[in-house]
């Protein structure tokens, strides 16, 4: 199995806090890896070190076996947790600008269709709703046909429809062959999307593995396995979507 991304013993120290304390993991090509944890656990700092926007105090990041560098920047697509875009610029112009920064950009029409942005192309960035904005930021992360996609808490603040649609989007990206690194504090999101997860707390990984395996390790003596998809207890989010509709609000 080819390893797309590997973090080795990452450490990030600030004057008064150890934000990341020896984090290591490997992400096989074509899988979705989830980094979970409560607020302040060190997820975002870890991912920003891997993305190259923060410098580690020590440790290394490897992309397809090589230290992450120029190739990584060309082939990685990144959706940050909080990113402002330029004012007075339309969705189309934003995508065109970011696309022009890469040597081998994606087909823009495909990205637009993939992220359901067709009706928003001429809209000013300032006039996008939370869900529309997240879809645009995801599209920005996809304009370079990335082999590796980082999604940092992509559904925070979204309504249930937008959240479920975003999941479908991420699954679509994965089906196209991309490797995904997802940070989230929504456990259901990780369960739906991730092949492997790592749970972080106080800067360290405290558990790592496939979601089912981790559950079995922890609750093996009380866990009841049901046939997937046949029996499922509806929750309040299901009720909300049932009442307000499945379609994405443009």
């Amino acid at each position, binding site marked *: 199995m080819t390893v797309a991304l590997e973090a080795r013993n990452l450490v990030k120290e600030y004057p008064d806090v150890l934000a990341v304390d020896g984090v290591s993991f490997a992400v096989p090509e074509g899988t979705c890896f989830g980094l979970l944890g409560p607020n302040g656990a060190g997820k975002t700092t870890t991912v920003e070190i891997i*993305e*190259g*926007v*923060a410098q580690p105090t020590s440790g290394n990041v490897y992309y397809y076996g090589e230290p992450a560098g*120029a190739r990584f*920047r*060309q082939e*990685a697509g*990144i959706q*940050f947790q*909080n*990113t*402002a*875009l*330029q*004012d*007075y*610029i339309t969705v189309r*112009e*934003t995508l*065109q*600008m*970011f696309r*022009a*920064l*890469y*040597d081998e950009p994606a087909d823009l029409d495909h990205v637009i269709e993939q992220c359901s942005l067709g009706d928003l192309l001429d809209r000013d960035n300032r006039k996008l709703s939370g869900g529309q904005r997240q879809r645009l930021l995801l599209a*920005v992360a996809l304009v*370079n046909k990335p082999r590796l996609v980082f999604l940092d808490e992509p559904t925070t603040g979204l309504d249930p429809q937008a959240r479920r649609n975003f999941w479908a989007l991420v699954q679509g990206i994965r089906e196209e062959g991309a490797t995904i690194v997802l940070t989230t504090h929504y456990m259901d999101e990780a369960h739906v999307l991730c092949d492997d997860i790592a749970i972080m707390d106080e800067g360290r990984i405290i558990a790592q593995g496939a979601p089912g395996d981790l559950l079995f390790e922890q609750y093996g003596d009380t866990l009841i396995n049901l046939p997937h998809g046949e029996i499922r207890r509806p929750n309040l989010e299901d009720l909300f979507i049932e009442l307000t509709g499945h379609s994405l609000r443009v």
Partner: protein
Amino acid sequence: MLRRVWAIFVARNREFMRDRASLAWNLILPVALVFGLSFAFDGQRDEYTVGVLQDEALIDTSRHPFLDTRFVQFVPYRDTDEALLKVERHQLDMLLDPGPPVRYWINPEAAKGYFIEFALLQSAAGNPEAVVKQQIAGDPIRYSDWVLPGILGMNMMFSCLFGVGYVIVRYRKNGFLKRLRATPLTALEFIMAQVASRMLLIMLITSFVYTGTHLLLDTRMEGSYLTLFVVGLVGAISMVSLGLIVSARVTSEELAGGLLNMINWPMMMLSGVWFSLEGTGRVMHAISQIFPLTHVLDSARAVMLDGATFLDVAPALGALTVQSALFLAIGAAIFRWERF
């Protein structure tokens, strides 16, 4: 590389041009200032300045009662031609030769020259024939002719410093720079795009404002438009580069505003935007030479008022180029994408 620079350049231009309020303010403010100063307030400095032709460094007030007049600054000059040029250019309100015979020159277009003439004649009330009025050769230079380069330069300064400094700090603060950093774009490419964008916009705006005021007020233009354009271009590069230093690391718009004002105000007061620095000491003169705006204004006035050629202003352009290279090198070296 050029494709990436072009992409950022185009996006920044669009952002600026579509911000109608800022664009309008950039166009309206300098025009309003030129008109206001030309027609409403005359815009002259508070104190009268009179040049005195003499060899000595100190003014001997016993040579003429006028030299004892309060609220007038008397500045010694040895070179008559140099002093007359300053009278023509509103840098001196009057030139006085204590004689005998006592002779004086004023610019007939200068309101303060008109009033200081009264003061001189009053001081010679007992023997007015002993004071001889001399004519200034050539067309007198109006205050609007003199102040126009100052206002254009000041507008350019504000636009270059705040237009780059504030924008980059805002990009850094809201995470847009961090997003760009996650792409193949380099710091140098980003800086080049910002400089190029601001250069294009400021040169368009300055050319538009200059053309409008020149046509409406029929301001003096003795030299070449191309030379004047080059002066503006090189000056703008220098001031944009200065703005980059301020914005290279700062993460707060409030701090950036304070730092930019710390640069703006001394530059505006000591570069000769509103009034001439005649009569200020050597220290002040030396300080003024540090500022890019001083070289821009001196060169622009030389071209517009005296018909200076490219070669005449080359030393000032050289100084501006050196300053630009220095500012850009510092700005690129200390540039930081992220907030922390």
